[in-house]
């Protein structure tokens, strides 16, 4: 059994503990260790991607216990892809945090950052539904700390909303898991897939309720209408590197939807008919409309980007809810693209905020910022990618989604809304960019009568490291545009693997491991200690009680 799969979870956990216990007073050492840890993480993630490239499924049994009873980690194409994306994003975000000194504006930034990575990666790798809940909580509790990093009344107020909303989401998740366990008697994903497929048709109401509740939980994470309320304020108020890292958190919701609804509740399952075409597709399209209208209507640059996140999630889920291998592949491409594009935009917004007079992010006139040409150019590139204009990856992603929607019965709706909302997004981004970067020169002309106000921050030269970080993200966007063909072939293979889950199930359930022996020597020793003794032992103590659930 290869131990590589658990390393991306253990490494950030150890690193976080090390940072908070040993080097908590040395910010330079924290930076070095955290960055080194993340680079190692990227290397491991790359190794896992290569190991699963040919479609093999790697299983890790925690404590060597066999699958339905022990917790397993499973690495396949989908999960390793997201692990790799997370570690890549984490490196750029940390470079930005170092360069912009966000990490010194509060305490324990890197420890929380590493715990957040642990939670996100754990959620991608786990093969157990309850373990997924636990990793969700790990990533959430770290995100609460990161969200209010460096404090401030506004950030705290939004932090309370964010925490409460996610607490409610977690409660709903537990209700859903309880219902699933009561119906099937297992929480292992592969075992669930088998048992739900074998459940008699007249006893599926509980399964259906659980699947709807789970979809709602993941929709909270993925910010699908009408469960998106927490996102705009939270992302706009979070520190910039944190908001950029949160770009992957909405994708955790999308990942969970893709994983659960291909493996456990596949589209041809009788019990969950209509969940996608009747509910998720309209919700996704409405999310897209709301997000892009928010881009047009936002009065602050940070909220504009936050609404762009909602819009991109709508686009992504529209592709998912078509629910063909082609649709899933398009959604995966768009997920990679939109994660990087939104992260770049959040970091750029922070650069603009630091340079503008009184840290304004509204669209009021203000003098041009130092290094404006470079920042404006980067904003232009990221906005083009986000709005889905050629030549960057957003355009390719959108084409793939439109192509995948061709097969759907409601193709006209999908096409009209996606194309119409793209236009609105272009207008929204163009308005924001031209007000902040171009009309600034007009306001400079207005200052000609008097001396322009001296502003230290606005005139300081651009620091190099943040620009390198943002440039790195944009370069990755260019790279996935250039290598869109090979990437798309890999994603199509990923989607095919998701729609043929038998190897996944047989790998998870068929791999032998340690098993519980009820009538061993150890048990007899144990019985001598027990005081309450019943002489009438059951005939077959191996029968687990959960069999009654069927």
């Amino acid at each position, binding site marked *: 059994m290869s131990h590589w799969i658990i390393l991306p979870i253990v490494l950030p956990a150890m690193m976080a503990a090390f940072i908070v216990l040993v080097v908590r007073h040395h910010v330079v050492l924290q930076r070095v260790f955290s960055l080194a840890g993340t680079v190692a993480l990227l290397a491991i993630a790359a190794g896992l991607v290569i190991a699963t490239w040919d479609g093999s499924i790697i299983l890790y049994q925690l404590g060597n216990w066999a699958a339905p009873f022990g917790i397993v980690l499973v690495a396949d194409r989908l999960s390793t892809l997201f692990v790799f994306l997370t570690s890549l994003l984490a490196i750029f975000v940390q470079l930005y945090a170092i360069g912009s000194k966000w990490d010194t504006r509060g305490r324990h930034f890197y420890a929380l950052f590493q715990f957040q990575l642990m939670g996100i990666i754990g959620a991608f790798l786990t093969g157990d539904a309850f373990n997924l809940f636990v990793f969700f909580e790990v990533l959430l509790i770290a995100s*609460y700390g990161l969200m209010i990093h460096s404090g401030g009344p506004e950030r*705290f107020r939004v932090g309370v909303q964010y925490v409460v909303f996610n607490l409610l989401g977690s409660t709903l998740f537990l209700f859903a898991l309880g219902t699933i366990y009561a119906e099937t008697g297992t929480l292992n994903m592969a075992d669930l897939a088998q048992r739900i497929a074998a459940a008699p048709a007249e006893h599926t109401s509980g399964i259906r309720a659980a699947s709807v509740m789970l979809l709602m939980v993941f929709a909270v994470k993925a910010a699908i209408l009408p469960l998106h309320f927490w996102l705009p304020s939270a992302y706009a108020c979070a520190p910039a590197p944190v908001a950029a890292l949160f770009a992957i958190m909405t994708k955790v919701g999308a990942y969970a939807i893709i994983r659960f609804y291909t493996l456990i509740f596949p589209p041809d399952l009788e019990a969950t008919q209509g969940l996608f075409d009747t509910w998720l597709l309209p919700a996704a399209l409405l999310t897209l409309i709301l997000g892009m209208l928010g881009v047009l209507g936002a009065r602050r640059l940070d909220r504009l980007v936050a609404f762009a996140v909602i819009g991109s999630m709508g686009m992504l889920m529209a592709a998912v809810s078509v629910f063909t291998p082609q649709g899933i592949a398009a959604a995966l491409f768009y997920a990679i693209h939109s994660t990087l594009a939104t992260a770049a935009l959040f970091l750029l917004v922070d650069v603009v905020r630091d340079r503008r007079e009184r840290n304004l992010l509204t669209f009021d006139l203000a003098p041009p910022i130092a290094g404006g040409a470079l920042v404006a150019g980067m904003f232009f590139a990221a906005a083009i990618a986000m709005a889905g204009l050629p030549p960057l990856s957003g355009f390719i992603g959108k084409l793939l989604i439109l192509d995948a929607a061709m097969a759907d019965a409601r193709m006209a709706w999908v096409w009209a809304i996606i194309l119409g909302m793209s236009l609105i997004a272009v207008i929204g981004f163009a308005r924001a960019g031209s007000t902040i970067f171009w009309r600034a020169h007009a306001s400079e002309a207005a200052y000609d009568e008097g001396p322009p106000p001296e502003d230290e921050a606005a005139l300081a030269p651009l620091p190099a490291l943040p620009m390198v970080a943002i440039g790195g993200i944009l370069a990755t966007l260019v790279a996935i545009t250039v290598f869109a063909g090979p990437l798309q072939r890999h994603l199509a293979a990923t989607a095919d693997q998701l729609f043929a889950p038998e190897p996944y199930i047989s790998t998870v359930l068929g791999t032998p491991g340690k098993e519980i022996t009820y009538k061993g020597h150890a048990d007899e020793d144990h019985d001598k200690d027990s005081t309450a003794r019943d002489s009438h032992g059951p005939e077959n103590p191996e029968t687990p009680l959960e069999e009654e659930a069927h």
Partner: protein
Amino acid sequence: MELLLASAVGVLTAAGVYLVLRQRTFPVIVGTAFLSYAVNVFLFASGRLAVQQPPVLNDAAAAYTDPLPQALVLTAIVISFGMTAVVVMVALGAYLSSEDDHIDDRPETGDEGAQS
């Protein structure tokens, strides 16, 4: 027994949802606590109700109750306890920094200034 448990879950959930919809942080936090109690009882019942039966498999016991929900509930209790502590601290921070414990959003005015 079933009636008692089901109504307990229902009443706790109803009270929790009502409190969560209040506008100030204190009732909302109490509401999330109620909801977590409700979900704990619910999880406990997901392994079927069995009175006075051991959750540990051994040859001497005539019948068992499912041990797994008990482990799940234990995990859920620990997590919700930690989460409640976090939300109390964040809410206190919000209250102390702005002298305002309303949880709802103010309208976006567009003229909020520096925040970092």
